[in-house]
């Protein structure tokens, strides 16, 4: 039996009528039309579906759509501060080669966003620990770490 859920997605309040068994990932992709969040495994192993749920990173494949009533969800599509500007993480992933095939990229960027929100000046080890739940098969992670470091620096400088 479908249930009605009210949720804020990327700042927009939405009323969704959902099957109770459907994951947040499938809801975002198939019912809300936000396909930036990717399905790499659907069982919580790869992190490609990472989104922010009330500011915390979650594997959206492990959360049911009906669980997010009253919550705030931010996906990769909601990261840009305005349509003309990219978030420093987005710029940085492009500039430093933090993305190749790009399939894991939205998950990495959302995880990095959560990491930097909590710890604006992480060490390399803290970054590597922070993204340890996200799998990338293209980059060897080196350039992802560099991209996050560079974005962290830019965000700190913008704050000060």
């Amino acid at each position: 039996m479908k249930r009605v859920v009210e949720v804020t997605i990327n700042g927009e309040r939405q009323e969704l009528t959902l099957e109770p068994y459907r994951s947040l990932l499938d809801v975002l992709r198939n019912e809300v039309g936000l396909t930036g969040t990717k399905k790499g495994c659907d069982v919580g192993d790869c992190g490609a579906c990472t989104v922010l749920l009330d500011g915390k990173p979650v594997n959206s494949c492990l959360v049911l759509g009906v669980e997010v009533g009253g919550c705030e969800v931010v996906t990769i599509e909601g990261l840009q501060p305005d349509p003309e500007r990219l978030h420093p993480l987005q710029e940085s992933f492009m500039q430093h080669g933090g993305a190749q095939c790009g399939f894991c990229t939205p998950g990495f960027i959302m995880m990095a966003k959560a990491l930097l929100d909590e710890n604006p000046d992480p060490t390399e080890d803290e970054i590597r620990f922070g993204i340890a739940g996200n799998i990338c098969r293209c980059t060897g992670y080196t350039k992802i770490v560099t991209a996050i470091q560079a974005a962290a620096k830019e965000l700190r400088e913008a704050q000060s």
Partner: protein
Amino acid sequence: MSVVASAIVGNTIVGTSVKRTDLIGKVTGTAQYAGDVKLAGMLHGRIKRCTVAHANIKRIDVSRALEFPGVKAVLTHENVPRVLHYGSPHPRSASVTCDQYILDRKVRYWGEGVAAVAAVSEEIAEEALDLIDVEYEPLPAVFTVEAAQAPGAPVIHETGYAGNLLFKPVVFARGDVDKGFASSDLIIEGDYETGRPTPAYMEPNVCVCQWDNTGKLTVWVSTQTAFMVRGILAEVLGLPLHKVRVLVDHMGGGFGAKQDLFQHEFLCALLAKETRHPVRMEFTRGETFVGGRSRHPCKIWLKQGFRQDGTVVARQARMTYNSGAYGSHGPGVTIVGTSALTSLYRCENVHLEGRCVYTNTPIAGAYRGYGVVQTYYALDIQMDEAAERLGMDPVQLKLKNAVREGDIAPSGHPILGHGLADCIRRGAQETGWEQLRRRPRETSGTFRRGWGMGCEMHGSSAYPGIKEQGNASVKMNEDGTAVLLTGAAGLGTGAHTALAQIVAEELGLRFDDIAVVHGDTDIVPWDIGAFASHTTFMVGRAAQMAASEVKKQLLARAGEQLEVAPEDLEIRDGVIAVRGVAGKRLTVRESMGPKPGIPAANLLGNGTYTPTKAYSFAAHFVEVQVDAGTGQIDVLQVIPVHEIGKVVHPVAAAGQIEGGIQQGIGHTLTEDYVIDLTNGRSLNAGFVDYKMPLSMDMPPIRTIILETAPDPGGPYGAKGLGEDPIIAIGPAIANAVYAAIGVRFRHFPITPEQVLAALQDQPDENA
């Protein structure tokens, strides 16, 4: 950090890390992958997979599935076309085998598809799979190459060469190995075995199919070879090519494996036809293992003879590649991997035999490094062993024998330049190798460190196995910008950016003035697919030729406008000027554009390039730490040195190298897709049990790229890079482990249990 050491000057766009055009969509979530396509009325398809390794299907009953609410169609071998086809449809090349049906009356590995369902939701389709009853008549099954070649072994395919051999064993020979061994001061032989890693691309296989009312099929699919998919779909479904359109915009990795068709492309098209609805089929992660393609597990016997001064005088080897249940790229992998041993380290007397064998295990296919990962692992470990027994440093031994200018490469071509020696020397210099190797081995304590190095060379095309062709078209717009049309796939390497850089460089335009159109078989020129490290090399050259053709037309026009000979003109930053003459100039825009009453110019250039082969080289230097208490091997740092002719995009090139090293570390230490040898069942088809290196497992990598041996066939001298970085890292790690603990491993993956067992077996040197 990465360094490009270039001797080539003068390019302004080629050689610069311009902003990759594919990334804006990837970092904002707007890039469209095949799985993101959503069409009105779209149904969802799923594949039922068998749970036996080898059997005839006695009976298959779909009636309960068809009655299940929401199910729209069910396909089995009884109602799909029965057309024997290639698993990977390169144009009839000897690299691939013709041994597959969409669905057969027989299954040959645990997990092979036996039926497909289309339903209104994925959940219903999945549930309906359980309602399909299949009765199997089990056949004896073989899971190893030994069992498959034993007398009386069940024959898996009637179409093979003999027994379970895919094709006649291939032999590469020159000189006289017996004489060579007779003149050797040292002979070493060994048995080597490599595991079953899988590409594990992040985007599971997916396709969406839709028919229109003219009988035309449109397919959105994650593939490296859109035109090959079009060709084989047309052939098997009985359609002319203009009735099949294949679309690939972005794809989430492929690493070689996504050259094949995986049953679902056909099934998706047929389900869409039967239901008159678009159908989407996406593999689960587990299916990307079970129904995907792995590297070929390989057993290698290698014997080499050396003179006291280190010269290799004889090399003999026998390789047996395990193809799994279907041929896919088995012949190509076997031929490329076997012939690779004719080179890297020079040797006049060579005898190599490669064979490829069917077994009742999941299918091995094309995967980055294509047969060479296996054979160079054996070769480079044996060279390390020989160095020790000859009392030489491995760097000196490898330098002494390194392939050099004029040597005949595995492809039959003379090698250009001294790329391999350059890589070895530079790496030795960067690491302070001589000092490092003088450190005595630690024989006590928990953590023991050691350095090792490995080498490789790899060709930038599939020639001579496949006669390839790169095509490109460049057309000018009336405002002086240009459009490149290419069939090359964007696996994630940044290929389209590199191609646009080449066009901009050639035309004298700014990078931002070039648009790239790709991924639509109805629009772009025919393309063989993105594989064999050839896109920048081959399609890049075709794009350069097309741009050069347009430039010729443009300069002819500008020559008339400026009243000078076209050969006196040059274009820079979009401005056409007379060489050496100030003032006489006009912009490309002015030259192209319309004048009152006169339309703009219509300039179009085509380029077709049929490459032979160029070789790229690498030497990887690695430090490992072995935990003698747990057997754990950690890679502490990697210094890869690559020679690739000309770097087009330094950041993207370094990214290829770092990613290849990540996969290679995985292969060598943790990754192995395990099959139960009693029943053929997959044991670790998922990311928890199939263990790839994560961010915390990866060491610092200091990449060095050399441009010392540019190839005249490549654009601006550029050669391939995609496959190289996965090859040398493996033996470098194994050799470093030997340096650390004195244990010689001749297989991968090297697991902690094996390390511990080997340490326990070691004689106590302190006793």
